[in-house]
């Protein structure tokens, strides 16, 4: 029987090894898999490369993972926000490296990684500092750059509902990077507010088919990361 359920967030992330590349879902706090990230901090894996849209807020979630010194490199589009002091100070101290990628290029590179497309051309970033050093080519008179697929060993993703096959639906704009990160990672680890029986999710509305998901853990009352940040919480 196929059963991708884990009994705890700690069990779900136990497979993450030192030096792994980990995609982390969420756009700001929406969709941030806070419980999985905290379990990963407890787990202790280090030397991680994190691929995520942002670089964490406050001193919880991804910011706490970075603060704990576990992250060598962040690949993201927007590591700056009102509450991103942790990344800023670690970056300025040379303790974390940054690959800055335009947001749509980041999303498309992740999708390409999941879809078996090793590289593609895009006009985005041509003529800008982020386009420098990239291979150029013109299509129908438009200059483009070559972009390479991103893949990861693991993805940490928050969903709304899941079943034991790993089928997922998300909630509102918390969907964001979850579906493509599940596609692009060897082991997609998902926390869902509810884990339901197969068939309870209408096959027409599944957003992430189970084939893209390897581990599922129910987290009934996930923390609202933005609330934790407002309250000044830190982890651990």
């Amino acid at each position, binding site marked *: 029987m196929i059963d991708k359920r884990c009994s705890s967030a700690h069990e779900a992330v136990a497979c993450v090894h030192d030096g792994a590349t980990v995609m982390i879902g969420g756009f700001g706090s*929406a969709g941030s898999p806070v419980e999985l990230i905290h379990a990963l901090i407890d787990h202790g894996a280090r030397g991680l490369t994190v691929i995520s849209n942002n670089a964490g807020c406050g001193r919880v979630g991804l910011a706490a993972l970075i603060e704990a010194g576990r992250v060598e490199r962040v690949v993201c589009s*927007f590591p700056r926000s009102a509450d991103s002091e942790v990344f800023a100070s670690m970056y300025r101290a040379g303790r974390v490296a940054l690959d800055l990628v*335009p947001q749509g290029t980041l999303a*498309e590179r992740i999708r390409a990684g999941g879809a078996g497309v090793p590289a593609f051309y895009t006009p985005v*970033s041509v003529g*800008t500092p982020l386009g420098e050093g990239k291979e150029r080519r013109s299509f129908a008179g438009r200059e483009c750059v070559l972009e390479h697929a991103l893949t990861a060993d693991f993805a940490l993703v928050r969903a709304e509902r899941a079943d034991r096959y790993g089928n997922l639906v998300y909630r*509102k704009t918390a*969907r*964001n990077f979850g579906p493509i990160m599940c596609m692009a990672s060897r082991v997609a680890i998902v926390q869902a507010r509810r884990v339901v029986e197969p068939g309870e999710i209408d096959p027409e509305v599944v957003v992430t088919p189970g084939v893209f998901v390897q581990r599922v853990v129910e987290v009934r009352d996930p923390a609202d990361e*933005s609330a934790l940040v407002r309250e000044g919480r830190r982890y651990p």
Partner: protein
Amino acid sequence: MSAHTGWSREEMAALAALDILDGTCVNLGIGIPELVAQHVPPGRELVFHTENGLLGVGPPPTPGDEDADLINAGKKPVTALPGAAYFHHADSFAMIRGGHIGVCVLGAMQVSATGDLANWSTGEPDAIPAVGGAMDLVAGVGRVLVLMEHTTRRGEPKLVERCTLPLTGVGVVSRVYTNLAVVDVAARGLVVRRLAPGVDIEAVRACTGAPLIDGRDGREEGP
């Protein structure tokens, strides 16, 4: 001339909103551009897109009704209108890069006479670089409108011959709305289409870093 002479931010947003045709799908940048949504002229229906995965963005929720899972690209709480749709980031940027979004309205640090845009980096060595979706928007959206003060707080021109700050895109801006003027980026240069009340074109030229062609109604043909 003070940066706050002329139109208010609300008025600039209203002017931009007037220029967006009925039925257009619009992406609004963070900051002043967000005001555009409040100034859609009666009888027009625009559909607002936010790149974090929602088409059909509605007004902010009433206090207490915020939903941490329903935010815009500026990470502010929003609502979804009837007829909205949620989608993931690759689909959202397929809309942008694929030319399906008709207009985007962005803030800017500098716009050049040929429509180059600089709006993502101050270029300062200790700044944390952050680009978000700006480069994707200017590369993919059909018509890029810029809303910005005419000069920096220190009075330096933001409309310039060439941008000195790191670029977001090359030759991408269509029209600029400042507190002083509405300016088109045309093949022959920057063309003033409209001046704020009480503002004189020579005064605008004095705080602009590139030549301005006077293209106001009755003065000259459009580009």
